[in-house]
């Protein structure tokens, strides 16, 4: 368990954040300039905040009041930077082994081999960083951090410098890392990309202007109407759990959710496997009566939990859908016309094509 309390002043900018990161992936989300990197650098020991208190598994790493500050090289934290930062004068295998000699308990050879295999970098071992593509560099950087057997893995926008195909090259490794058997390394994952977070995060910490705006379980945070303005109306969307029931020949897969079945294209999971779906709020349509004669077949019975209106003409509606929560964004006028109140039963229509391929991630069963 990583416990962080940091206060820091950077020019006019005031960072004041307190959060905890437990097992699994904790995503630190915020727009550019909200202090994410400052916060992570403080955790890593690369920056000393004005005041702060950081503990890792009960061991104090920083206590500005007591004048205690464990230097970065003794914190046992792996750090994957946005720009890779591989050592240009060393080969890939030398980069991987750079931190091994400093680890209290070095990563066993078996785990090293497994990691090289998992990251698909066996053929690159003799190369130098200059001869690697962007995606390969990030995979090596990830391996290098893990070879040092860290107690926590910090990742600062590790995919931001990559194009979409390269991201798709790395995300599955991160998911495998998260879902690895045994005791996987807790990950603090910094990003401003909602789709990455929706796919990876177990917990989310939302930063806004240097303050923590919301934090908690990923499913709960993303289905909270209050976070819609923080994520952006186009990016907001809830996560729901689903299980793959069938893959039809026409490319559509049948998924079972707690409130009913969905038919979606582009699902790459095995039959019987549990996955998490991200349903964008703007892709959910509400109807009081069960719709007939619609082209969409994805209709779930739901009930309204809460309605939150912002400054504009839109409203965010939190919906209970079986054991899951959905988020819908409709106009205030529609709310009035449908006479939606907390508790109102209605139907959520999800267009099959609107569930983005990249957001269909393999989730761990969190229901």
């Amino acid at each position: 368990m990583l416990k962080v309390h940091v206060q820091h002043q950077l020019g006019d900018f005031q960072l004041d954040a307190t959060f905890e990161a437990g097992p699994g992936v904790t995503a630190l989300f915020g727009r550019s300039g909200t202090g994410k990197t400052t916060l992570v650098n403080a955790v890593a020991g690369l920056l000393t905040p004005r005041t702060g208190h950081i503990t890792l598994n009960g061991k104090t790493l920083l206590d500005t009041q007591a004048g205690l500050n464990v230097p970065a090289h003794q914190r046992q934290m792996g750090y994957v930077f946005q720009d890779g930062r591989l050592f240009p004068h060393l080969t890939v295998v030398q980069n991987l082994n750079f931190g091994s000699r400093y680890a209290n308990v070095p990563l066993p050879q078996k785990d090293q081999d497994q990691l090289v295999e998992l990251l698909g970098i066996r053929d690159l071992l003799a190369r130098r960083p200059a001869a690697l593509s962007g995606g390969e560099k990030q995979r090596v950087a990830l391996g290098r951090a893990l070879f040092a057997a860290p107690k926590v893995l910090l990742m600062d926008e590790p995919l931001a410098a990559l194009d979409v195909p390269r991201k798709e090259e790395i995300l599955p490794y991160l998911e495998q890392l998260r879902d690895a058997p045994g005791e996987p390394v807790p990950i603090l994952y910094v990003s401003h990309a909602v789709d990455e977070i929706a796919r990876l995060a177990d917990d989310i910490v939302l930063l806004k202007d240097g303050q923590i705006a919301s934090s908690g379980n990923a499913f709960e945070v993303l289905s909270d109407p209050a976070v819609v303005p923080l994520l952006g109306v186009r990016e907001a969307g809830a996560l729901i759990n689903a299980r793959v029931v069938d893959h039809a020949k026409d490319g559509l897969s049948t998924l079972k959710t707690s409130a009913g079945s969905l038919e979606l294209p582009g699902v790459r999971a095995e039959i019987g496997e549990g996955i998490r779906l991200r349903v964008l709020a703007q892709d959910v349509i509400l109807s009081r009566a069960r719709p007939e004669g619609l082209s969409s077949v994805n209709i779930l019975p739901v009930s309204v939990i809460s309605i939150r209106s912002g400054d504009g003409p839109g409203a965010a509606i939190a919906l209970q859908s079986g054991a899951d929560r959905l988020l819908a964004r409709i106009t205030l006028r529609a709310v009035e016309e449908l006479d939606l109140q907390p508790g109102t039963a209605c139907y959520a229509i999800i267009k099959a094509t609107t569930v983005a391929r990249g957001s269909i991630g393999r989730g761990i069963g969190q229901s």
Partner: protein
Amino acid sequence: MTLSGAEWVALMLSLRVATTATACALPMALWVAWILARKSFWGKGLLNAAVHLPLVLPPVVTGYLLLIGFGRNGPLGQILDDWFGITFAFRWTGAALAAGIMGFPLMVRAIRLAIEAVDPKLEEAAATLGASRSSVFLRVTLPLIVPGVLAGAIMGFAKAIGEFGATITFVANIPGQTQTLPSAIYAFLQVPGEENAAFRLVVLALVVALGAVIVSEWLARRVARRIAGRDA
């Protein structure tokens, strides 16, 4: 081109003086260059100015200051003589001291440029992997600046070979003892009929200096390539 005994002695002495001067000044130059490149502290400008002083002062002045400080009756000279048995005055060691001090700013400049070209973010990354500050320097910074260090050493060496003004002021021009290549050329030019001997030494000095500049340029280019990661 064959060298006479006296010329040969002067050349060997020059090489010994320059090698000693470079070897002793290099570690200190590395340290000062690192401080100037990576640290900020009160008096940094002053240190920088002091390092560059031998480059801008007339060499005679540097030699005279050395004579005052490190001569037989100089405060530092006495201490070193009493405690360590090191004598500089009118010895080849004095020539090495003068040569080292004159070459020092050139070494610091070359090494500092190389260190500044190393991305501090790489050093941060090494720290997060568990490397202490000295390990970071030895395993990341130093390997990346080796060509810059070599270039600095070669410039310093060439400067030491050619150093004349401070040397002759500090330790005079004693054949076999303090008469380096430039001092020997100067001495030969004072004697009518010895122009040929002087000319041979001039050619020798030219070859050494030119070679040093070419090698140092080549190494400097390698620094850039190495840090960009295109080369081993």
